[in-house]
Every structure is written in C-alpha cells, then in structure tokens.
C-alpha cells in the first residue's frame, strides 16, 4: 500500500507540476508595454534593449511567471522620436490595455508623460538621464539614475580627489548634453574649481575644432565631454590638436567600442558606470552568456543591465498588486512602486525609489589603462 502510494505520489508530482505550468501559461498574462527605437539611428541600442527585455521576460516565465501568470511584453517602435512615441503610447494604453510602459530617450519620456499622467498609466524610464524627468508628473518614475547621480559624483571626484582646478566643459547640444553639462559646471564650481570653457556642439557635427580651440585657450587641466556616439571623434580631434589634458565623460563613454575606435588616444579617459561588472556580479556573467548565444557583443552593457532590471521591477509591481488582490491599473502599480520602494535587482543591485521621483545608486568610476576600462573608485 505504501509502495503504491509512493508510486502514485512520484508519478503525480511531475504531472501536477506540468499541469500547473500549463495552467500558468494559459492564464491571462500580465502585460506591459515598451516604447523603444527598433528602427532609425538609435536602433543599435533600441534593438539590444528589446532583446534583453525578451531574455528577462523568458527568464521570469521559465521560473513560473508572476504569481503563476505569464509576463508578456508588447514593443512598439518610436525611432526615438517624440511624435511617433505619442501615438505608440496611445495604442499601448487604449488597444493593448497596458497599465505600465517602459520608455527610454529623454524626448520620448517627456512626450509620453502627459499621456501617462492623463490616463493614470505608470511610465518607467529605464535609459534616459535628463534631470527634468523627475518633474514630469505623478505617474512618471525612473528606474535609471538621472544625470545628477553620476555627473555630480564625477565632478566632485575630479575636483576633490584628482585635484583638478580648471575644467573645460564641452557638450552635445541636446537635452542630455545640456542637462549633464550644467550639473558638471555647477558642482565643479561649487567645489572650488573654475570652468574656463562651456561650449556646445551640434548633434550632427563632425568637426569639433572650433569648440576644442576655445577650450584650449582657457588652458584647462581637465576636459569634461558630455556627448553621445560622437564622443570618440571629439577625443580623437582633441588629441590631434595637441591637447593632452585628462578627459572625463559619463556613462555613455563606458563602451568597449569607444576603446576600439580610439586606440591609444583613449588612455587616461575617466568614465562613469551605473552598474556593476561581471567580475563583481555573477548575474551579469549570466546575461553575457545569453548574449553569446545571440552571436555578438551587446551595445552598452550597463544600459542592458537596467533593461533587465526594469523588467524585474515591472514583475515585482504585478506580483504586489496580485498579492494585495487589487485590479491591475496604473494607479495600483504606482501604489505598488511606492509601497515596495526598495528593490533588490539581479543586474544592478539595490534600487531605492525616492519621493522626488529619483533613485539612489552607487557610481562606478573607470579609467582607461592599457586599452582596458580599469576600476578607479566606487562612490556610494
């Protein structure tokens, strides 16, 4: 009898698990939207974000989903353009009935914000760092540190730890560049430094000689460049003009492609990163392994770590709402975000959402040494 029972038990457990799994898959999924540039000039990053979301969603579903229900993502293309994002957001909310949307790129986050606030849909920024994002309304939050986190840390470090006294600040003339450059200037100045040049360049520029020569006139001992994909060209032209000063930049500079493009000219460059590396966090190694299956290196690994973690945040919000037997609405998801507040995330560590719509994260500083990003310091 005992043997029979045991046999039945042994046979029934996998069957029940299979049935339970199948049931979970049949259940109505928790849906969230993602507005990403899958075409256009920013698609290089956007497609890798989407791929990482897909990996994270699969990982969550393979581990039983969220409260027994599968997680489902609906992606719409924005080309990183606000006008396309507006209609895509309307479609996600009205047609696909999502209550939470993940966005990136400052202009897209801002364009979607009025819709999110009007329709009580939670908007989570996972990649834009414009400081204005903290003031976009009650339904707009960020899970990605805004510019003041890493730029403030970098400016203070440059002034106080490296002892630099005169800085030239060059920046791309867009939302990201202006916001970041102003923070650097203000922090560096209030720490007792002097900003000898504060020059913008056009986002489509390919020749930076003019702004570099203006910077050289001030004889700075550090040049902070707040740029995006054009950063290697700016540094290369700076070196060609004989400017050998220390260069600093923010997290967009933490990219292996930059090292490949610049070669020896990258030596000494200090950049920030807002996420730990594979050597300090084994989960990052797992993400890199998944990318090896894709067959190529991902673009902007730290950003992808945030992409993964933003999916985990969304899953945690759904789980909280389900646990508290509340309907899945933007209002309740926002309530969940503020109730949970502290998230322990696999790729980037602890995340604390503050009342002022910002988050707290440590800043990792790297310096380029022998063609490699080498850890310089960590600022908590």
């Amino acid at each position, binding site marked *: 009898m005992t043997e029979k029972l045991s046999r039945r038990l042994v046979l029934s457990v996998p069957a029940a698990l299979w049935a339970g799994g199948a049931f979970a898959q049949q259940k109505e999924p928790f849906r969230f939207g993602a507005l990403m540039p*899958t075409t256009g000039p920013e698609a290089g990053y956007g497609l890798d974000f989407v791929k990482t979301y897909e990996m994270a969603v699969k990982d969550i579903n393979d581990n039983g989903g969220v409260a027994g229900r599968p997680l489902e993502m609906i*992606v719409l293309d924005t080309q990183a353009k*606000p006008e396309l994002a507006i*209609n895509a957001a309307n479609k996600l909310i009205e047609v696909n009935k999502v209550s939470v949307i993940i966005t990136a790129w400052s202009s897209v986050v*801002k364009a979607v914000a009025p819709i999110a606030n009007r329709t009580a849909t939670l908007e989570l920024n996972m990649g834009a760092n414009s400081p204005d994002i903290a003031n976009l309304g009650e339904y707009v939050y960020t899970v990605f540190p805004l510019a003041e986190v890493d730029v403030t840390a970098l400016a203070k470090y440059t002034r106080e730890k490296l002892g630099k006294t005169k800085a030239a600040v060059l920046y791309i003339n867009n939302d990201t560049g202006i916001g970041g450059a102003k923070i650097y200037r203000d922090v560096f100045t209030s720490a007792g430094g002097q900003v000898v040049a504060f020059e913008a360049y056009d986002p489509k520029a390919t020749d930076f000689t003019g702004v570099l020569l203006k910077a050289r006139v001030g004889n700075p001992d550090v040049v902070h460049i707040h740029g995006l994909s054009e950063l290697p060209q700016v540094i290369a032209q700076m070196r060609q003009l004989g400017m050998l000063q220390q260069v600093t930049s923010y997290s967009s500079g933490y990219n292996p492609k930059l090292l490949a493009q610049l070669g020896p000219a990258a030596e000494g460059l200090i950049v920030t990163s807002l996420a730990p590396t594979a050597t300090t966090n084994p989960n990052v190694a797992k993400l890199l392994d998944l990318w090896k299956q894709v067959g190529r290196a991902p673009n902007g690994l730290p950003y992808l770590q945030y992409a993964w973690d933003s999916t985990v945040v969304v899953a945690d919000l759904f789980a909280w709402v389900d646990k508290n037997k509340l309907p899945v609405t933007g209002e309740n998801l926002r309530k969940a975000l503020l109730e949970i507040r502290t998230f322990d995330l696999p790729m980037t560590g602890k995340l604390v959402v503050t009342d002022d719509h910002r988050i707290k994260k440590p800043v990792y500083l790297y310096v380029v040494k022998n063609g490699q990003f080498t850890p310089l310091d960590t600022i908590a």
Partner: protein
Amino acid sequence: MEYLASTGVLIGIYIILATSYNLIIGYGGLNTIAHPIFFALGAYTAALLGIDTGLPAVICIAAGIGVAVVASVALAVTTLRVSGDYLLIASLGFQLGLLQAVNNLDFTGGPAGLSNIPLTLGGPARGWLYLMITAALALVVIWLAQRSMAGPFGRAVRAMRDDEVACAALGRGPFAMKVVIFAFGCGAAGLAGGMYAYYYQYISPEQFNVAQSATILTMVVLGGLGTIWGPVIGAFVLVALPQAITFLQLPSSLVGPLQGLIFTSLVIVFLFLRPQGLVGTPVAGAAP
C-alpha cells in the same frame, strides 16, 4: 477609443498642413520647404502663451496663427521676388535658421522642448472632443482652399503658376497673389501647430525639422498636387497606414523596416505610374 481619436487628431492636423502646403506649392507653384517652421511658430507661440499667461487656448492658438502669418509675410516680401531653386534655398535657410534659434533659446526650452503645456478639455471624452474640433478646422481649411481656388482668384493663381509673365501682362499682380496664398497657407500651418501643442502637451524642435517637409510633401504628391482632396487622402494614407501595420502582430524588428519599405515604395510607384497622385487628373503632355 482614445487611440482612434488620437490617430484621427493627427490625421486632421496633417490634413490642415497638407492642404495649406498644397495651396503654396501645388496651386501657387512656390517651391518652399519652410512649412514646418510655421507649424513650429504656431505651436511654440500657443504653448508659451498658455504656459506663461494662462490665457484661454483659443486666444493662444489665434496668436500662434498671427505669428505664423506675420513671419510668412516677412519671408514672402523678402524672398518671393525670386522663384524656383532660389526660393527653395531661401526657404531652407529660413527653416534651418529659425529652428536653430528655437533650439538655442532658453525660453523655448532649447532642445528639451516644452513639456508643461496646460491641459485643456480634460476628462474621458478629451480625445473625441479634440477630434471633432480638429476635423471641423480641417473642413474649414479645405472649404476655404476650395472656395478661393474655384473662383477668379484661384484661376489667376494657377495662371501665375503656369506663366508669371503672361499673368502680369493681363493686369494681375503676381507678387501680391504670392504673398496672400503664402500667408494663408502658413497661417493654417500655425493653426495646426497650436492644435498640436495643446493636444499633445509636449513640443520640441526635432518635431518640426526639415524631415517634416518631406512628410507633408509626400502627402501632397501622393494624393494629387494641385487638387483639393488629394492632400486630404494623402494625409489619411500616410498617417493611418503605419498605424495599421502595427496591428499585423509582426515582430518589432520587422514592423519598422516594413513601414519604411511601404512608404518609399508608395512614393516610387506613384512617381512612375501615377505622377498626378491618387485624385489628380493626367496633364496633357506629362509622363503617363
């Protein structure tokens, strides 16, 4: 559904833009690509007035139209004495220069744009109310275009377009006619800008760049240059089609390229097979 209403509002705004642009380029034969900057002037004027003064939206949008008209007259009196390629280059300079100014001024929000435009017509029916207003305004613009182009003034404008010297010889003042249709077309673009700013509550310079000219021009050419209903159909097709593709349940990596492919294929097919557009009639002696 708010989504349908939102798409409808966008179609309405583009109908106003395409119809007004058609008056300038299709009927008037004035090769300008500065239409987006008048769209921007209307949007920024309405938005800034709304934010800084709290005036009613109607007044702010009317002011946007006024600024667009004044700017268009300023451009017209200085550049409409030239035509063809020269006008094209002058209008390009105006478009790029003014947008650079918008991009670099603090009070316009610079590249970050303006994101705190006051909410008007709140509530669940907001989208439908905006759709009705935009549709009504689009109909008014179409009606005005139709009325003005059907009468003696319209015939004189077409005569000017086809042969400016002959038109002047008949006692008509081509320059005054150019200024009038330019001001009317740009004023309508300002109206579209004001509606855009109040409906979407966020504007930035990149929404009004020169690529908008290509979009509006494609709407006009696809529908039928120099026709009343052509730009309306062109605006409808080019706004609705990309939206329809998103319903095909295709992978996200396919949707974008497919949209681009259909857009460019439509332009090429129409240029070769039906240059007069969807509703235009073939011109004698023109390529079939």
